[in-house]
């Protein structure tokens, strides 16, 4: 059963039975997302240590979900359309990606745009060089986007870049304004440039994302 906001609130008020029920419900999705993320990136320990590694990571995600009075769980809003399973599943992938990057930061739940963020940037120009971006670099870029973007930010990445939805379509589906979606579009491009800069140097980053 998909947990309700009221059930999550009960758990966060310290009701042990509610916490137990929530842990039982969320363990399978955290286990699946952590395992998949680690397997994809070759990050699983050898031999019998692997399952312990996965359990440790799942435990780590549970701590992140419940720490600071359950900040990450309180941030889940079912009215925004994402189920709790998907919310925590995304945060699990974010956590794995962050640890893989050597960044053990707290979960990214929301982002802050600078004042000029609403301005639309020029569309990306054709860039044949991108074809030579190695699969490993792209994997690292994708992981870094997962690690650094909030659930809403990654949802925008999925809509605008992965599924290539038109801005008007995203506005209609999400109820966001055109300027808000344009702000996300600009932010995603800047974020990708920043990550590539970290991965491969500033010049290459401009070449690949501008």
């Amino acid at each position, binding site marked *: 059963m998909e947990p309700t906001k009221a059930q999550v609130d009960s758990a966060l008020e310290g009701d042990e039975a509610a916490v137990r029920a929530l842990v039982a419900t969320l363990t399978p999705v955290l286990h699946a997302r952590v395992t998949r993320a680690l397997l994809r990136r070759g990050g699983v320990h050898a031999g019998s240590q692997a399952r312990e590694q996965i359990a440790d990571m799942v435990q780590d995600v549970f701590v992140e979900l419940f720490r600071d009075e359950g900040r990450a769980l309180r941030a889940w809003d079912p009215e925004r359309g994402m189920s709790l399973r998907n919310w925590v599943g995304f945060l699990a992938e974010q956590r794995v990606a962050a640890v893989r990057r050597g960044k053990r930061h707290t979960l990214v739940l929301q982002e802050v745009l600078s004042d000029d963020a609403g301005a639309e940037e020029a569309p990306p120009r054709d860039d044949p060089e991108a074809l030579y971006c190695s699969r490993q670099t792209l994997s690292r870029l*994708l992981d870094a986007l997962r690690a650094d973007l909030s659930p809403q930010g990654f949802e925008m990445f999925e809509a605008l870049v992965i599924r290539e939805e038109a801005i008007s379509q995203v506005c209609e589906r999400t109820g966001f304004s055109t300027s808000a979606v344009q702000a996300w579009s600009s932010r995603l491009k800047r974020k990708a440039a920043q990550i590539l800069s970290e991965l491969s140097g500033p010049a290459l980053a401009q070449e690949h994302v501008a």
Partner: protein
Amino acid sequence: MSHGDEPRNALEAAARLAREEADDALSDPRWESYTEGILSEDERRELASQATGSPGGERAEELFAPLGDEAQDRFLAAAMGALRAGGSPAAVSPTLPGDAGAGAANDGSPAREERPAQRAPGGEVVPIGVAREKRDSRSRRAWVMAAPVALAAAVAGVFFARGRAGGPLPDYEVSIAAGPAATRGPGGDTFDAPPGAALELAPGEGIRVRLRPGSPVKGPVGARVVLVVGSRAAVLPARVETSGDGAVRVRARVPAETRPEGEPEVWILVGRPGDLPGEGELATSDLPAGSDARLRVFKRGATWTAPGRQGPGGGVPPRQRPGPMKR
């Protein structure tokens, strides 16, 4: 860029990689069913076989296998520990995305400034969103059975969108126990109840069910435990284990937020996965009227009792031990 075109930049190339990953064998949603322990032997073998060609796929079957009760106890302890450690959310994150109204634009864009804090009655400074969340959570304690069955319409179609995996099922022998022993201990495996005894249910406590097929079953089988009160019903959160011959064990729990009112019934559904209802709340009229060859339905009367009252010493009291289920 259409999906078949070459990417123009690294962001698009990363998106193409994401699309490839979404289509690969590790993204099969049945892996999550496997971690939950509700996948049949046949499906597990099929999944493992499909994953063999994927990166790391040869280890998938081993690593997605359910983590078990011991790990779950560990997670519970860690979660309770993190919760008890407390900490002010205001000190950690002044902007909580649960409330876009303060500090964030209502148009859905990310917040451009931090949410203003307000002073709580006790003098503690907390973000506005947190104060409202706490107030709302108290007023929403009453659980799903008391709420309008908003999801009923969405769930109603599940019974009619039946999958075709697997053939007819034999009759099943059903044993059921409820209460603290069913929640916590091996005593919950005692199923020798007098016939017709009513189950005693309590919010936050468990229901344990054992289903034995009259003859071996081939193909996937699943089960649901449904709490029915009057015209309302809810599929309970449960851990379901299946054996290769179609036997099923279920450990379900009555949510702690359940309001113990009305005359409850527990319905056990065992069937092919495509024939079982999804999770959530539904109306009784959305449940199957009775058994058929692909979905067996067993009903058991129950009463409400206070948590922890079901039996001395954690054992299963004779009154609640199960008898034959009515069909």
